[in-house]
């Protein structure tokens, strides 16, 4: 029995998919990367943008055509909007929320017993997460031997107007800190070098427990304490924090422990106050600025990444220029810049998408140029320095090994050495340009 699993979207879905694999392989399924060999076909969907959802529709149409020739069972889970769920109910054999992953074996065994009509009225508009702990208790089947994702939280209570996640993943629920620490301890002892704490708003961790769970800063501190006594070298990252919940204590803790990576991904989305309000981001530029000042003061070596949406409803040239000014002020090492596209289910979908496609492309280009300038300037600082680098890939063009620094700056080596894969090595930086550097192992 073989299964094929397609994972779309963010690291959260990747982490979820590792638990799906664990459940299926526990049932006796083996994974295949060739969907034509599989009798069980699944997708972990992403609703953040329309394109991944379109891919789900295309894929299930293809799979259902295959059903004319052979027996297949199909399933979909992940981030699903209620409207898409309604449609998938008619096209997939199984559809379930990740909180019910533990019952997937029963669903597969009992397939065909329950009719959709009997259950549709019980379908929630907003997913409930009370049982998500059951999913978290499933040991993931990691795809990598050196990089792992650890979910610490599920759901989102922020209601940014451009995003549908609160409607696809439900309310914020924090995973028990003892489970998180155990999983990190296990991963570090297994030799994992890069461990990323995952959540839609990682730094609101614990707030849903009304004082019965530790804070995000304390969670990091406990991880840091483990790192101090561990004989293994590893870096712990987190993504994504929300500026509203970021505080100086978190930054102080990161500064205090070697294992807490000196890389902070702090989504800004826009540098304009009016657009931030329209996005319902709940943080001002003053607040964002104070966080960056704290980072620069307490962790001057930290790299700073961000997320930006250009062309959001209400963003004119003047507002866009404020984002450019923010880039010039904060000198980001990296920014993931997306052109705004309305997503069904998000509040902004109901508004006119008033910025033309040409203007969005133009702003994306211009902002990317600013990013490149400061990325290059930042990377020049590392020239001739020796840095720890996690080797994690191969350059497509040269075939040489590639890796990332603790600050997640890409480093290309001057040769390929398969034995270094997944290892932390010292690399002397010999050249630097925007978004990446080159070096030699020393």
């Amino acid at each position, binding site marked *: 029995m073989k299964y094929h699993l397609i994972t779309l979207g963010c690291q959260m879905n990747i982490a979820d998919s590792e638990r799906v694999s664990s459940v299926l392989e526990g049932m006796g399924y083996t994974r295949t990367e060739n969907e034509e060999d599989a009798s069980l076909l699944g997708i972990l969907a992403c609703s953040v943008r329309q394109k991944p959802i379109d891919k789900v529709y295309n894929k299930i149409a293809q799979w*259902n055509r295959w059903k004319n020739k052979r027996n297949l069972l199909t399933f979909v889970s992940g981030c699903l*909007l*209620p*409207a898409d*769920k*309604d449609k998938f*109910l*008619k*096209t*997939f*054999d*199984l*559809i*379930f*929320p990740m*909180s*019910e992953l533990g*019952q997937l074996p029963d*669903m597969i065994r*009992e*397939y*065909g*017993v*329950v*009719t*959709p009509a009997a*259950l*549709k*009225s*019980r*379908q*929630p*508009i*907003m*997913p*409930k997460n009370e*049982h998500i702990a059951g999913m978290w208790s499933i040991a993931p089947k990691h795809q990598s031997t050196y990089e792992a994702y650890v979910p610490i939280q599920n759901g989102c*209570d922020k*209601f940014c*107007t451009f995003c549908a996640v*609160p*409607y696809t993943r*439900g*309310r914020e629920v924090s995973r028990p800190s003892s489970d998180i620490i155990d999983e990190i301890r296990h991963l570090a002892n297994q030799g994992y070098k890069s461990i990323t704490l995952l959540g839609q708003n990682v730094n609101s961790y614990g707030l849903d427990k009304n004082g019965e769970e530790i804070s995000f800063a304390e969670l990091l501190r406990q991880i840091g304490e483990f790192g101090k006594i561990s004989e293994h070298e590893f870096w712990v990252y987190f993504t994504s924090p929300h500026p*509203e919940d970021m505080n100086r204590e978190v930054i102080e803790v990161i500064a205090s422990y070697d294992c807490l990576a000196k890389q902070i991904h702090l989504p800004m989305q826009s540098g304009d*106050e*009016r657009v931030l*309000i*329209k996005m*319902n981001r*709940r943080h*001002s530029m*003053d*607040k964002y600025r104070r966080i960056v000042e704290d980072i620069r003061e307490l962790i001057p070596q930290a790299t700073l990444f961000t997320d930006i949406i250009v062309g959001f409803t*209400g963003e004119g040239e003047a507002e866009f220029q404020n984002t450019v000014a923010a880039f010039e002020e904060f000198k980001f090492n990296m920014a993931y810049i997306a052109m705004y596209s309305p997503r069904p*289910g998000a*509040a*902004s979908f*109901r508004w006119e998408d008033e910025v033309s496609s040409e203007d969005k492309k133009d702003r994306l280009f211009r902002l990317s140029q600013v990013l490149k300038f400061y990325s290059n300037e930042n990377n020049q600082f590392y020239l001739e320095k020796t840095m720890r680098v996690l080797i994690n890939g191969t350059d497509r063009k040269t075939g040489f090994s590639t890796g990332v620094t603790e600050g997640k700056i890409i480093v290309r080596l001057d040769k390929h050495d398969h034995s270094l894969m997944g290892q932390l090595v010292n690399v002397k930086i010999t050249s630097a340009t925007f978004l990446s550097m080159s070096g030699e192992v020393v």
Partner: protein
Amino acid sequence: MMSLMKPDMQMDESFYKIEDIRQLTGNAFSIKLPKARFAFKAGQHISLGIVGGNQSREYSIYSGENDPNLEVLIKEVQNGYFTPQLRRLKVGRVLEIHGPFGKFGMEPELAAHGKFVFIASGTGIAPFRSIIRTYPTIDYTIIHGVRYSEEAYDRDQYDSKRYKLCTSRENKGDYYGRLTGYLKSCTFAPETHFDLCGNSDMIFDALEILKDKGFDRDQIHCEVYF
């Protein structure tokens, strides 16, 4: 095609039967539900969906923390998708409620000792009614911006000396014009806390005015209606 939908909820505490609908104006009304089965802070919001539908919207809670009913204030949006459906609902229909959400909730300690100016446009007054009903002795002034005076929802429930109505389309309020115009003319004690709720343009303009008056951004809390 046979399909299996694995349910992730039962008919449980998320479902509320409508107990009453109060018509406030031609297109604004409040929906009264049973008392909230969750603890909330006055000022927070909930997610509200119609059972059997597949969409939900966020609404500030209109009732106080200790009121016998959970209540929301709704204005029908012409040619909208969701609010016309809400408008057609009758007593006895079931809504799906999730929450509470947000950090706009009032802290008891602050309510007891703080001095507040609540700035609202339209139905943005909802969280402030919740706060005032929860903390009847709170030191507050409401500046409420509407187009017509009939949109001064439940005005008689506020202390008339503390409620300033700004009407932009007719001269029947305390101030004829936009609330931002009134705000510019006001002076406030330096220790005042400002809570803003309404559409994003009003909030941005009010923020700029308050910053020009020298108030720190930390004294100003915003809840955007969208």
